[in-house]
Every structure is written in C-alpha cells, then in structure tokens.
C-alpha cells in the first residue's frame, strides 16, 4: 500500500512539472545553427537554410525553405543584408507568430560604406556582414540568442544562459590559443577571393592586401587578375583564401604566377570536411592560414 502510494505521488509530482516545449528555430547559416544548438541543447530543434558549401549571398527562394520556417518560433539571421533573400522566405512561410532576430544588432561593424553605388559592386549598405569570423563577436551573438530563446521559453532561461556561458568560456580559451599561434605572423599579408575575411584579419592582425574579384560580386577579369599577380609578387604574399563555393581558376592562376598557395578555407560550418562545428571550423581556418604564412 505504501509503495503504491509512493508510486502515485511520484507520478503526480512528475505530472505537475510543466512539460518543456521544444523551441523550433530556423537559422539562415549553419554557424548560427551551431550556436543555437549549443545554447539550447535538447530544448531546441534547429534547422538552417544555407549549407556550408553554399554562398549565403545568393540563394534561390525555394518553397522547401518556407516549409522549414513555417513551423518555427524563432528565425535567426546574420543580417546586414547578407541574406537579401530572407524576407521572401519569411513572407512565403506565412508564419504570423515568427520572431525574426537580426544578430548583427550589437556588433561593431566594419567597412560601413560612406557611398552606395552599384559601380562599387555588390556593396552591403550596413557594412561587411562576415562578423562571425571574429570569435570575439561570438559572445555578442550568444547574448542575442540566449535572450530570444529565453523569451520563447522563460522556464529554460537559466539553462540557456549556463550553456552559452560554458561555451563562451571554452571559446575564449581556444581564442587565446589561436591568437598565440598567429602572434608571430602579425602584419603578414594575404589575398582573399571576396571580402569575407575582414573581421578574421582584423582580429589576428593580418593584412588583406587585395581581392581576387575586382569588386564585391564581380567575377575576376584578366586585367584585374594580372594586377593581383603583380600585387602578390611585390608583396611576397603567400596565401590566397578562397571559400569552397568560389571558382578556383583565377586564384590558382595568381598563386601559380606569384608562388603563393591557395587555401580552401571555410566561412561556414560544413564548408569543408574539417569544419564540423564553429570551433573546429575556426581551428581549421587559423591553423591552415598559420601554416601557409610561416
């Protein structure tokens, strides 16, 4: 009898604990999905739209993305006009209760243009949006994610905060390790395909001397390639950073002519095999660049 009573009490106690609802989240990029997964743990269900090997600037608006967003509670985006396609996906999802969170809100922005003109190429009017490649910006991103998740599920706010804090601590330790690795290489020059590495370079004090593309979004031309070869030769530049979704032809031509090396580095989780999550992606990127610049 006593055992039965105890069992009933346990069952009743379990029933009185409010069931934890999973927060459905969609992010634009896999990096943001990684951050949400870390902060939310098993209290969130995360999906992302862009794959790591896709260029997040140019995404065709597919109905399958709208299906993902349709059942989501939160939509996290990099912002700063990186995902110009996002509003069409959001509108197409017809999700009236969706909360859209622009994670760039509190980021210190670089390369904010003073003049907007199509002659300058595909310039982002709010500044360079590739801020997640500086790990010092990750705590800012995590704060926004934790705030949004906590609002969606207030009962789990402490868990989200604790998860994020533990991750930020681990990331800070890795950041110091990466900085130490790159310290002897400060001031070294690199060439990048696109202006994706501005924050990364500013963090590690390396210099982006030029780009393979003449202007943002404009394919390499023979005359510009010749000018970059000249730049690489004169500057003794050893590394050309190219994301997996860009064509290697012009970069390889420059590398061959200037005695440099093309580095297939990733701006997003899943872009290369080694980039399983944000930490492994950054570790791979930093070590690859360091090895080439030595």
């Amino acid at each position, binding site marked *: 009898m006593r055992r039965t009573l105890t069992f009933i009490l346990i069952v009743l106690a379990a029933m009185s604990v409010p069931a934890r609802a999973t927060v459905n989240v969609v992010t634009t990029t896999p990096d943001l999905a990684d951050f949400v997964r870390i902060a939310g743990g098993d209290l969130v269900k995360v999906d992302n739209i862009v*794959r790591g090997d*896709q*260029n997040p600037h*140019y*995404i*065709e*608006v*597919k*109905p*399958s993305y*709208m*299906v993902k967003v*349709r059942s989501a509670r939160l939509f996290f985006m990099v912002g700063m006009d990186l995902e*110009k*396609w996002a509003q*069409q996906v959001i*509108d197409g999802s*017809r*999700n*009236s209760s969706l909360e859209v969170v622009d994670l760039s809100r509190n980021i210190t922005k670089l390369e904010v243009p003073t003049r907007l003109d*199509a002659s300058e190429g*595909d310039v982002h009017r709010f500044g360079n949006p590739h801020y997640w490649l500086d790990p010092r910006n990750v705590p800012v991103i995590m704060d926004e994610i934790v705030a949004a998740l906590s609002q969606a599920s207030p009962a789990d706010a402490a868990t989200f905060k604790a998860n994020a804090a533990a991750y930020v601590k681990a990331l800070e330790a890795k950041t110091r390790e990466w900085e130490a690795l790159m310290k002897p290489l400060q001031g070294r020059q690199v060439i990048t395909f696109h202006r994706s590495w501005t924050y990364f370079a500013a963090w590690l004090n390396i210099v982006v001397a030029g780009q393979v593309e003449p202007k943002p*979004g*404009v*394919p390499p031309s023979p005359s510009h390639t010749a000018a970059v070869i000249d730049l690489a030769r004169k500057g003794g530049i050893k590394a050309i950073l190219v994301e997996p*979704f*860009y*064509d290697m032809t012009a970069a390889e031509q420059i590398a061959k002519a200037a005695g440099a090396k093309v580095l297939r580095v990733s701006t997003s989780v899943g872009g290369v095999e080694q980039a399983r999550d944000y930490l492994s992606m950054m570790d791979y990127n930093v070590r690859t660049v360091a090895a080439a610049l030595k």
Partner: protein
Amino acid sequence: MTSQAQRALAVLLLCAATGAARAQTSSNPEISVIPRLLIFTDDGATLDQGKRKFSRPEFQFQEIEAVFAGYLNPYARADVVMALSGPDIEAASLGLEEAYLTVLRGLPLDLNVRAGKYRAEFGKLNMMHPHQWPFITQPAVQARFFGEETLNDLGISASVILPTGDVYSRLTVDLLRGLSIPNAAGLEDTTDESQPYAASGRLMGFFPVGDDADLEAGVSAYTGVHDPYTGDNFWYWNADFKYRYRPSSYTSLVVQGEYLFNTREAVQGPDLVPFVDDRGNPERRSITSGGLYLYADWQFLKVFSAGGRFDWSQSPYSTDDAATGFSVFFGYYPVEETIGLRLEYQHMRTDVPGGEARAVNFIGLQTVFSLGPHKAHPF
C-alpha cells in the same frame, strides 16, 4: 498676420515638409527599371513572293518596365509595374502592366490575398515577366492561347498552403474580370451586357530531389467566356513542371515544360470570322486542342548558359492549324543579372488549314539590363 506669425508659420510648414520628406524617404518603394532591346532578322516577310531571304536586321525596343514595390505595412505589400511597349517605343504610351496589393499575413488559415491587376498563377511561365525568360521568343502555346499579354487581368486571388507536412503544396484560386481571352482573340466586348467573370486556379507541389535538385509540379485550370457575343465558354487545363539541378554555385540545369489542353464551343473564330460547314451554313463547333513547350537551360559557367526549346501548339479554334518549332539560345550575364545578352535562333513551321505550310527562321540578339534593386529569384 504679423511678420513674426508669418515667419513661424513658414518654419512650421518647413518642419512639416521636412518631416514628411523624411517619412517618405523611409518608406519609399524599391524602384527598378528594366529595358529589353532586340536586334533581329527573319525570313518570313518574303515567303509570299516565293523567296526565302533574311530581312535587314532591325533594332527594336521590346519594352521598358518600371517596377515599384514595397511593403505598405507589416501585413501587406504592393507591386506596380508600368510598361512602355515596343516596337515604336517613342510613340507608345505608358501602360499599366500590373498593380496589385498582397495581404501577406494576419488572415485566417494563413491565407494570402491578392487584389488588382496581375499575372494570374496559371502554369509556371505565366507568372514570369519576359525579361526573366532564358530565351527571347514567347512559346507558341502561350502566344496562341493567351496572346502577348498572357493571362493578366483584374481580379482577386486567394492562396493557401496545404497541410502536407514537409512537402510544400499550395492552392491558389482567382476570380478575374475575364477579358484576357476575348482580348487575345480580338473579340473585344462591344455589347452592353455585363459578362460573366472568369475563374482560374492552380495546385502545386514542391519536392526536393536530393541535396542539389528540386522539382515543382502543378496543375491549373481556367474557365470563362471566350466570345462575349455568343456567351460561349472555354476551359483551359494545364500541367506544368520545373526541375532544377544545381551541382555547384556556377552550374545549374533547368528543365521546364507545360502542356495546355483547351475545350470550347464556338460559332466564330478570331476576329469574328464565322465558322461554316461544307455547304457554307453557319456552324457551331466543339473544339478540343492543345499545345506544349519544353525547354532546358544549362548554366555551364557563372556567366554563360545555353539551352533549347521545343514548341508545338494547335490553335484555340482548330486542330488543323498547328505550329511546330524549336529554338536554341545562349545567354551571357557578365555581372550577376544586372546585364544580360541573349542570342536565339528559332525555326517555326505553321500549318494553316487549306493553305501552305510556312516555316520561318528567326535570329535575335536581346539585351536586358536592370537598373535598381532586384529580388532573389523564386524557384
């Protein structure tokens, strides 16, 4: 009024005007201007003289579109497309191609409601403006069954996403003024009687096929009065599909096709020519006819694409009058889609009942440029 009061009033007006200007700036619509220019030659003009000779290449402004688009409020957006149509663009007057309001959210069942003048969702091609096509010439089936203006009418539409789980499917229904088909046939309504509305609808589904490919398939129907003088009805049934395979950022293959099936009763053909039987007596005909197009477009480098299209179409009024043709086309887009150059060769053979078959060859070079922002492409 004292000079001081006048000055205060002027300052107030200036402040109000500045405020209004600022408010206007913050809610200005996105404006794009998209001209289409064409240089073309064909060998059709001299066929009546028994000769086959390409004409002197002719420069032609096909159209200039001005697009104004933006959100009206958090629930709705508006799109207005004004067009100057060629070929005599200097003498053309600005026409309204589309002007519609779309309520995006806030309605029961997550309905989207569109009202105004717009290209109805009938098939896949009808929603696309010609500058979005990978080719220059209009597919014969669309030209013959809808005319150059396509299914673009005043009306109201409602669409709902169906509860099909991870598969995106959508049902759209339209109630339309019903003038597209009579106008395309040259049967403009001069009767004083009010005509019945037309109705159309489309059911579509979207199916991812692996990581790099997607398939969209749809069926559409459209019905209304095609002859305002007799009140005769028509039914159009349409099946469409689009397949896209994108193995990398720089390469993609699009295969798209549509089949249209038409049924109608008619006592006269286009331009009020009455049908007569073998003895010359007036005749009412039951007509079933159809047409199709199928194209493939292969983007083989970031800036280059090439493709081909097959056309076959009967007439809305006859199965004896058929057009069959093919075209090959090549596209060059040097910087995204701000500038596009398209080269097309088309061979189109038309079999006219009781007449001689005519085969016309067309070669055209089209330039399209887009001034202003352009949205990401829908699938």
